[in-house]
């Protein structure tokens, strides 16, 4: 039998993590399912669990001039209902699971789970999200893109806990989010797309594209984006094929029970095309 622990304060959690190796569980909506056994049998955790869902001091959403700060324990529904949440983050949360899951699940949990199909990740990558990570004697900040290192792999030490998401404010002219799944709610994506752009005086000032579930991590290429920032909208439209071609080699999806690689690749490229068409129409 595992020796699990309920932490009710951040300090208690950090001290416990410093002394013992735990698997961290927030809402539990992924962890319970991934480790479940037959009905009535004990959950098949291989490690002791530390439950952090009841740490109130990590349950907040606030802002300053530059950033939005979301505590690691803030429930998805709270983020959805907040006035300071960016529209594109609301768009993705509204398509994440269902109200019942959103009342307990957290963004930090979705990040810690590090699934290539993690719904919120595609938008958090787009927004250049950073994480605050604490241990008993240290606080560090890391970009989300550097934190997730592979399928279900994260750069978190045994004594550390994600405590905060830091999301820089953006002023996109428009945003575009698409999740492709078999059902609107409670579905794991076949793939997903998030895009945002800023146009001033007919010039592309910012252009960002992120793709989910078509590679081992979320795809976001600043190199490609840079090539198309600074040009005019007409030039972007003229070079549409070049942009799509640039993404083509990065998209390396797999076959699984939800979809297959041909479909995923084709739809991913189509969504980039559709995103550029939206810029053209605007």
């Amino acid at each position: 039998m595992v020796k699990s622990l309920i932490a009710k304060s951040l300090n208690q959690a950090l001290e416990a993590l410093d002394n013992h190796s735990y698997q961290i569980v927030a809402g539990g909506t992924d962890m319970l399912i991934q480790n479940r056994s037959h009905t009535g049998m004990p959950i098949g955790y291989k490690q002791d669990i530390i439950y952090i869902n009841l740490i109130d001091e990590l349950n907040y959403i606030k802002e300053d001039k530059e950033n939005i700060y979301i505590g690691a324990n803030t429930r998805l529904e709270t983020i959805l209902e907040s006035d300071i949440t960016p529209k594109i983050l609301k768009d993705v949360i509204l398509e994440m699971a269902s109200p019942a899951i959103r009342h307990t699940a957290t963004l930090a949990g979705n990040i810690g789970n590090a699934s290539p199909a993690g719904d919120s990740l595609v938008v958090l990558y787009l927004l250049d999200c950073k994480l605050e990570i604490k241990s008993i004697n240290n606080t560090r900040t890391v970009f989300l893109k550097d934190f997730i290192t592979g399928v279900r792999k994260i750069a978190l030490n045994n004594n550390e806990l994600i405590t905060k998401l830091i999301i820089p404010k953006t002023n996109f002219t428009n945003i575009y989010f698409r999740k492709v799944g078999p059902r609107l709610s409670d579905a794991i994506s076949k793939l997903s797309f998030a895009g945002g752009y800023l146009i001033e005086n007919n010039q592309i000032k910012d252009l960002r594209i992120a793709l989910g579930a078509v590679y081992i991590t979320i795809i976001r290429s600043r190199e490609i984006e840079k090539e198309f920032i600074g040009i005019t909208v007409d030039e972007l439209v003229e070079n549409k094929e070049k942009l799509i071609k640039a993404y083509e080699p990065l998209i390396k999806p797999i076959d699984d029970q939800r979809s297959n690689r041909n479909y995923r690749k084709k739809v991913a490229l189509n969504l980039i095309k559709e995103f550029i068409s939206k810029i053209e129409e605007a």
Partner: protein
Amino acid sequence: MAKIKFKLNDKTVELESDINRRLLDVLRDDFSLTGPKEGCGEGECGACAVLLNQKIVNSCCTPLANVDGQEIVTIEGFSKTKRYQIIKDAFSEMGGVQCGFCTPGMVIAAESLLNKNPHPTDQEIRIALSGNLCRCTGYNMIVKAIKKAAKDGEGLW
């Protein structure tokens, strides 16, 4: 094993248990509350729905640890309220119950919605029910029932 204390259907309960257990198993096996049911067991069908601090959650993916010191209401507890009576009558009148397996979850979803939004639109009702599956596919009648409950129960929520 740990001592867990929480409010269950208006009574404070205490138990010594493995805190990794699913709330669904605790409710059914330890408290004989069989209103919440196991449908899919993975958070997709809503048959196990209960209220946690007045909001709908799936008890099949809620660890017992996460309810320590919190308030849980199951369909059994909710059925003693006036709001339940309104929802129940509306479901009966609009034909919102067919085989009945999803109904406790649907009623919990309706209460969670109306508690937050007493005058929901059709679209808001459909979003609120998006985590609840009815395999008899009687969705339209359930949406109509919740609309009717909102009207008949004016002032209750």
